[in-house]
Every structure is written in C-alpha cells, then in structure tokens.
C-alpha cells in the first residue's frame, strides 16, 4: 500500500512539474516579441515606452516576473510614504482585516448557529432572513457600509464579517441539528446540564461540519478582501493590485496574483489541518 501511495505521489509531482515547465515555456514563447520595427525619430522615440517603440509585447515574460518577485522578497517591508509600502506590509494589512472580520463573524456565527440548530422554531423563523442575505455579494454592502459606518477601514472589515458569516452560520446550524439523536438521549438520561451538553456532546459532534464552514468562510474572506481593498484603497494587497494597475504594470499584477494565491492556499491548508484534528471516526 505504502509503496503504491508514494509512487503515485511521485508520479503526480512529476506531472505537476511537466505542466509547470510547459506553462512557463509557452509563456516565454508567447511574450518574446518581435524585434524593433520601424525606426522612428530618436527624439520622438525617447518620449515613448518600450512597447510602443520596439513592438515588444506589453506582457512580461517569466524572467521579468521572477526578477520582480526577487525585488519584493529582498525588501518586503519598506515604507516610502503613505501610498508606497512594501508587499509584506500590504499583506499584513490585508491579513489583519481578514482576521478581524473573520473572528467577529465567528463570534456571532457560533452561538447563533447553535441556537438555530437546537431550536426548530428559530430555525424556521430566521430562515427567510438568512436565505435573502446569503446570496448578496459582499461588495454590494460596501456603499451602504461606507455611508453608515463612515469609516473605510471598518467598512472593509464589515464586508469581510458579512461574507464570512453565512457559511459558518449555516454549517454550524446544520452540524448542531444533525447530531445523532441517541447521543442527545444519552445526555438526557444522564441529566447533563444544557451548557455541559452543548460543550461536551454537541460541539465535538458538530465540530467537523463547523470547521468545513470555517474553511469555506476563510476562502471567501480572502477572495473578497482583494476586491474590497481595490475599491476603498489606502492599504492592503488589493490596493497594491489597483496601484500597479494604475501604472499598467502587468508584472506587478502577476506577482500579486501569485502572492494572493499562495496566501489563500496557506490559510485554507491551516484550517484543513484543524478540521482533520477534530474529525472522529464513527
């Protein structure tokens, strides 16, 4: 078994590598532009950019991107004024916002989810609200948040809060409501207090479902923060993308895409690990 498993992993890694090399090769081929076209007046040419002068594709090649990544890695925490900060600092701002909004959502979603899951009445009563609010794009809340909260930083955190709330709430409610009846009956027979029942019977039983909800939420929160920061600006990885877009620097936008993907993966894997820790065999 072990031998088959490891050989499968090895083969998968090999295929991954081949795909990666093919992708980089195609990229390189696609972006290595033509050489200089018409020779224009050098005085005039000085006023134009490289792509206008040489016909070189505006799309950067893999080498350009690698070089830019190296530049960011060498100095991730520089501060050259309010509007120009290192990639590391921008990531820190984004992660901070996500963490705050996410934790607030967790604080609200867990107790509320328990309530909904344990009480069929509340379940039915709150259902219409949840069903209407859930499909709303979190960014649609932004103008309303800016108008009522009157602070763009808190508005961004609010948007993260609202988008991470629903998956956690729904999964908690579902997890709680589908705890096995026998276990609850045992708890009832033993005359366990409601609080103790919640913590020692229901919580462990519902934990895997809750963690799934949390994992979905963190993914959504990370998706949304980039868009939210592009909208309100100031700081964060979303602002970085917007600022580089403003400068039409495709290289930096690609770098940002890679970084966003990497951080999103790390967040997801971290929660996946926690989920595995609380899973129990039935």
């Amino acid at each position: 078994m072990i031998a088959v498993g490891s050989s499968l992993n090895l083969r998968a890694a090999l295929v991954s590598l081949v795909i990666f090399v093919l992708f980089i090769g195609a990229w390189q081929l696609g972006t290595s532009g033509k050489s200089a076209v018409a020779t224009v007046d050098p005085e005039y040419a000085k006023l134009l950019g490289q792509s206008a002068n040489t016909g070189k594709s505006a799309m950067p090649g893999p080498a350009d991107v690698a070089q830019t990544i190296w530049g960011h890695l060498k100095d991730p925490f520089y501060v050259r004024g309010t509007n120009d900060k290192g990639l590391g600092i921008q990531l820190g701002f984004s992660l901070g916002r996500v963490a705050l909004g996410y934790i607030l959502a967790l604080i609200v979603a867990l107790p509320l989810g328990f309530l909904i899951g344990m009480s069929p009445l509340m379940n039915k009563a709150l259902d219409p609200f949840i069903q209407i609010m859930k499909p709303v794009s979190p960014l649609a809340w932004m103008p309303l948040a800016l108008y009522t909260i009157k602070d763009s930083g808190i508005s961004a955190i609010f948007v993260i809060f609202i988008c991470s709330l629903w998956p956690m709430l729904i999964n908690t409610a579902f997890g709680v409501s589908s705890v096995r009846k026998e276990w609850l009956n045992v708890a009832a027979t033993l005359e366990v207090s409601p609080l103790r029942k919640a913590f020692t019977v229901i919580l462990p039983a519902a934990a895997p479902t809750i963690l799934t909800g949390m994992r979905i939420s963190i993914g959504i929160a990370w998706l949304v923060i980039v868009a939210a920061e592009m909208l309100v600006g100031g700081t964060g990885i979303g602002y970085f993308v917007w600022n580089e877009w403003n400068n039409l620097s495709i290289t930096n936008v690609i770098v940002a895409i890679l970084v966003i993907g990497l951080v999103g993966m790390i967040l997801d894997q971290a929660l996946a690990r926690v989920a595995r820790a609380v899973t129990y065999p039935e």
Partner: protein
Amino acid sequence: MAVEPLSSSAPNAEEDRFSRVVESAVMRALFPQDATRRAFLNSVGVSTAAAAIAQFFPIMAAKEAFAQGAAPEKKDLKIGFIPITCATPIIMAAPMGFYSKQGLNVEVVKTAGWAVIRDKTINKEYDAAHMLSPMPLAISIGAGSNPIPYTMPAVENINGQAITLSMKHKDKRDPKSWKGFKFAVPFDYSMHNYLLRYYLAENGLDPDTDVQIRAVPPPEMVANLRADNLDGFLAPDPVNQRAVYDGVGFIHILSKEIWDGHPCCAFAASKEFVTQSPNTFSALMRAIIEATAFASKDENRKQIAEAIAPANYLNQPVTVVEQVLTGTYADGLGNIKKDAKRIDFDPFPYESFAIWILTQMKRWGQIKGDIDYAGVAKQVFLATDAEKLMKQAGLTPPTPSGKTIVVMGKAFDPSKPAAYVDSFAIKRG
C-alpha cells in the same frame, strides 16, 4: 524622494502677496463684476474702499489669519487625491514642502475613485480633497448624493485634458465620422463629460444616441483602449500621454482647443471644516496658493514632474508626467508637439465657471426643473456670505460674472444661463 525645499523668498514680499490675495479675493467676492469693482474703487479710492469694507467684513482679521498664520487648530491633516496630473498642486505640496512650511503635517492619500473620495470626505476621513470641479456643485445640490453644504475654495488646474483615440482611428480625424463610437469619461459629473458632449454636439452628433459615453475609472481607460472596448476617451492626464507611451492611442485634440482656460479639478472642503478650523483652513489655502503659483511657472515643471511621478504619488514613468507638465509631447502619430499651456494652474474659482457647469448639467438632464444658477454657484463659492454682508451694508449685490468664457467660438454670458441652454440644438428635455 528628496526634493530641495523652496528657496525662501523675502518674507515681506510674501506677506504682501498674501495680503493682496486676501484683499482681492474679498473684493472679488463682494464685487464679482469687474466693471462694478473698478468703478467702485475708482470712485472712492482703494484705501477708503478697504476701510468701508472693513466695517462689515473683518478684512484685517482675515488678512492676519491668512498672512501671519495664527496657530492652526489642527496640524495633522489628511487630503485625498486621485493619481492624475490635475492634482499636481495638492500632491507636490507634500514632497516639496509647501505644507510643512505652513506648519501643517499633511498626509496626501491616494484614492481609488471619485465616489470613494466623495464618501471619504463626507465621512471626515479626509479633511479636504481633490475633486472634479462639478462635484462640489453636485454634492451641494444633492445630485447623486445627499445634499451637503460643500465649498470649492480653489480650482487646481485649467486645461490639461485631451481627447485620445485608438490607433485604428488615426485616419478618422473628423468627429462627424465618429458615429457609433464608444467613449469613456472619468465620471458623470465631470468637465470631461461636459466638454466631450459639447464637442460632439457641436459636430452634429447626439452624445446620447449617436455614440456611447460611459464613466470609466482612469486606470482602466488605457487597458480598455488596448482591448478594443473603447474607441476613445476624454480623460485627465497622464492617461492620454500614457496611451501614447504604450502605443495604443493618439492625442486627437487637447481640451484646451475646446475651451482655453476651462477649469477641471478642484480643491474642495466641507463647509464645516472651513468654519470650524479657520486657521487651519487658511494655512492650507496658503500652501495650495503657493504651490499653484509655483506650478504655473514653466521653468518649475520638470522638477515637479520628478517629484510627483514616483509610486507614492502618481506611479507613472517620469517621462510621461514630464511631457504632460512641460507641454512638449509626442502625439502618438510621430509628431512632437509643443504647447506650454497644455496644462496650467490657476486657483481662482470664478462663479461663471460654476454657472457654465450648471448649464451643462441642465442641458444633459442631470438636473431637472428650474434651477437658480447664480444662487447655487454662490452657495458653493462661499459668495452667499458676502451677499448677506453686502445687504447689511446697504449695497446691492451685483449679478455674478467673472471672466469671459468662450467655448468652441461661442461666448457664454453667465447672466443668461437659461437662454444659453436653450440656444443649443442638441439637448435633453
């Protein structure tokens, strides 16, 4: 970016200048009509006039607050800007030390779009902001937002915009052949929108039915032009020059060729900020006026371009910003053009500017019903106060007028806005 602080000229000369600026600003506010003002000054003499005005307007106090710089109530300020060259005075005042010279610690914050800058200013996250000059008018009359008393104490730049077309249209220089084009402007309430509509309508195209005009944020414009989603735009610089720099478009005409001396962007603040921190406000105005004066000199433009091009401010190649500010630029068709007034800086907010903008809002149906053109213009340009003071002093407020406005050869009389709107063949409603 270390920029040499300004060589401090003789402080006396400077105080004199501020004193003159305040005096003439008060005079202009009280007597917006040049002829009336001159007649008044001639008949009573300048010193008598100043003394008479001092009876009801604290001109000395204003001068003192302005020139001597009474300690500002608030030193740490945040000012929002959009990364375009229109914001030059507001931006350059930070790296070039104009704010710090007035004892202010100003953080200039780059902002993603006009709606956001409006909301952040209304929310008081920003103390003052760079806006499009129609915006304070729109905010004050509640078009597109709740009415909030807004003031526009200074225009930032005049001219400095352009119509850029996609390279594939390089043979279609006659606007009459532009039917079906897709154009972009930065915002619905912008000079760009009104100038483009004016230009198209003068050439016989109805901007609402013959072409499509949409609001697109400036950073997206070049990308959309490249992607063939747009045929052209009337945009603020450096967007136009950037399209040339990247080889995707050419500059058809400068906005200067539509209306030489048109206002574009503005320095705006809420009425609340102006009245609650008058010393801070005057220190800020002093910095802006100085920066604007510095920016209006051709020989300083190169230095300014280097100061505002880095990532912290405009985030553009220096050569692009330099071409915009110096007016020696590549037009995208292989020619080097020279026009030192491609963009210029003049802070005085003439009321007639506001009235012209309102006529266009009316013309294109952005405001419905009857409007009190002069009334709104006065409200936003802080002239209501002056009118009240004049009435108290037993003077008759004159009809507002500032300077002559000629758009594409057609003169505009700010005292007859309704007739002006009616005079256009192509209009809404």
